[in-house]
């Protein structure tokens, strides 16, 4: 084994804990930082620390936030009558990239997983219900992932919310763009069929 100075080895071992970084790339990055100017390392170290210190959960929608509430909840142009429910903060990114949704969000931080003991109490469900009880919301859009646990969570929330007289909708499921009908499973085809629209 090649002898490497201790501080370099320590950095490489920390870097290799990041997703997608193997021991070789970790060592390459460590050498890169060693050869680059001092300011670059200082900026990186500070950015990491301040991110960990300053990013909190938005107390309204539980998205990540810098300070009080998240940028979306603070934006007065957003429509407060619609809430889109997602599993994790990273699910907001593609929905915002689409650019057509103008309502608010609610992040559950997971899905119901009966076999792992994850139930409603482990998710941000009671917080969602108190937002809805304020009476401003007319539609809740379920954007949990289209898999068994995501569907189970959506069905459960629908049961909770419908009695409040609020419309509950679900992102259309079914055949992904570019899919081949022949290889689609019966659940997917069934959902695509039920969700068919007039041409």
């Amino acid at each position, binding site marked *: 084994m090649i002898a490497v100075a201790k501080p370099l080895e320590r950095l490489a071992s920390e870097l290799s804990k990041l*997703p997608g970084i193997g021991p070789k790339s970790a060592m390459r990055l460590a050498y890169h930082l060693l050869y680059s100017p001092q300011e670059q390392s200082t900026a990186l170290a500070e950015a990491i620390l301040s991110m960990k210190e300053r990013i909190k959960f938005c107390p309204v929608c539980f998205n990540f936030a810098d300070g009080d509430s998240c940028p979306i909840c603070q934006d007065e142009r957003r429509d407060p009558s619609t809430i889109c429910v997602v599993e994790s903060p990273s699910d907001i990114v593609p929905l915002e990239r689409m650019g057509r949704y103008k309502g608010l969000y609610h992040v559950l931080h997971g899905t*119901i997983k*009966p*076999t792992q003991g994850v139930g409603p109490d482990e998710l941000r469900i009671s917080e969602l219900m108190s937002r809805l009880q304020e009476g401003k919301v007319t539609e809740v859009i379920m954007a949990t992932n289209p898999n*068994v646990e995501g*569907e189970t969570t959506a069905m*459960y929330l629908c049961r909770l919310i419908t009695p409040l007289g609020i419309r509950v909708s679900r992102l259309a499921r079914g055949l*992904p763009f570019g899919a081949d009908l022949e290889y689609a499973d019966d659940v997917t085809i069934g959902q695509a069929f039920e969700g068919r629209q007039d041409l």
Partner: protein
Amino acid sequence: MRQLRVYQTQAVVIKQTGLGEADKILTLFTPDLGKVKAVAKGVRRPGSKLGGAVEPLTHSLMTLAKGRNLDIVTQSQIIDGFATLKSDLWKVSCGFYVLELVDAFAVEGSANRDMFELALDAFRYLCQDEDGGDTILRHFELHLLSMVGYCPQLHRCVGCSSSIGSQRNFFSAEQGGLLCSCCGSRDGSSHILSLRALKVLRLWQKSSYPEASRVKVDGKLAEELQQVISQYIRYILQREVKSTKWLQELKKFAVDNTRRGVYNARQSSKTVSDERKLCRLITPGLSKKFNA
């Protein structure tokens, strides 16, 4: 003997865990190899060929390649996706419960064709079911226990071997069966088992599900049967079955809603039979309330 590089097997996915950005590690239940851990590559990207064919609660025909550590799923063709089960909150939750028990009792690398068929039957019956699934779960549990060597003794006292009469009997999870009234009253950990429950258990233990489902079980009896079997299972596993909590939560939730009149409030716009269907979706037993 040289192992085959590629093999084909029927499988039900028990659970999935994420691996990196796009892959998943699957725990499969197969008829000839018991539990198998395998990697499904690229399934977290939309449009993946494997996609829905490696979801839990799906019966598939899979092709796997032998890997150094874990085998790799190269193809998966759905035999039955149990769509009816997945589109109903209560049924899908019962399905998760069955999966959790299979995960707890099946063994890696050990064939168990009977258990595989038993689990598939439970999913099929749940799809067809009209009464809420309690009998399906109890029948599944009893037969699963027999298959793994924990068949409860329901004909003789496990303490003194005396035959069981119609006096007060007890069930002991620790001893795996009935205790006569004198042995039972001396054993603080056992619980009284009603004669009705005993008769139903004896019948279900030796009958197929279609036969078992003909027994009329009211709410109180259903609860007793659920409790006695789940205490026994908890004792065998030395832990809780996690999905039990979720099933109980769903039942309680449905009862609370009916009590609050949530469903009655909407009755004006729906026919009574719609209403009954709605409640059956949530939980067993409630349809009876609407008949009353």
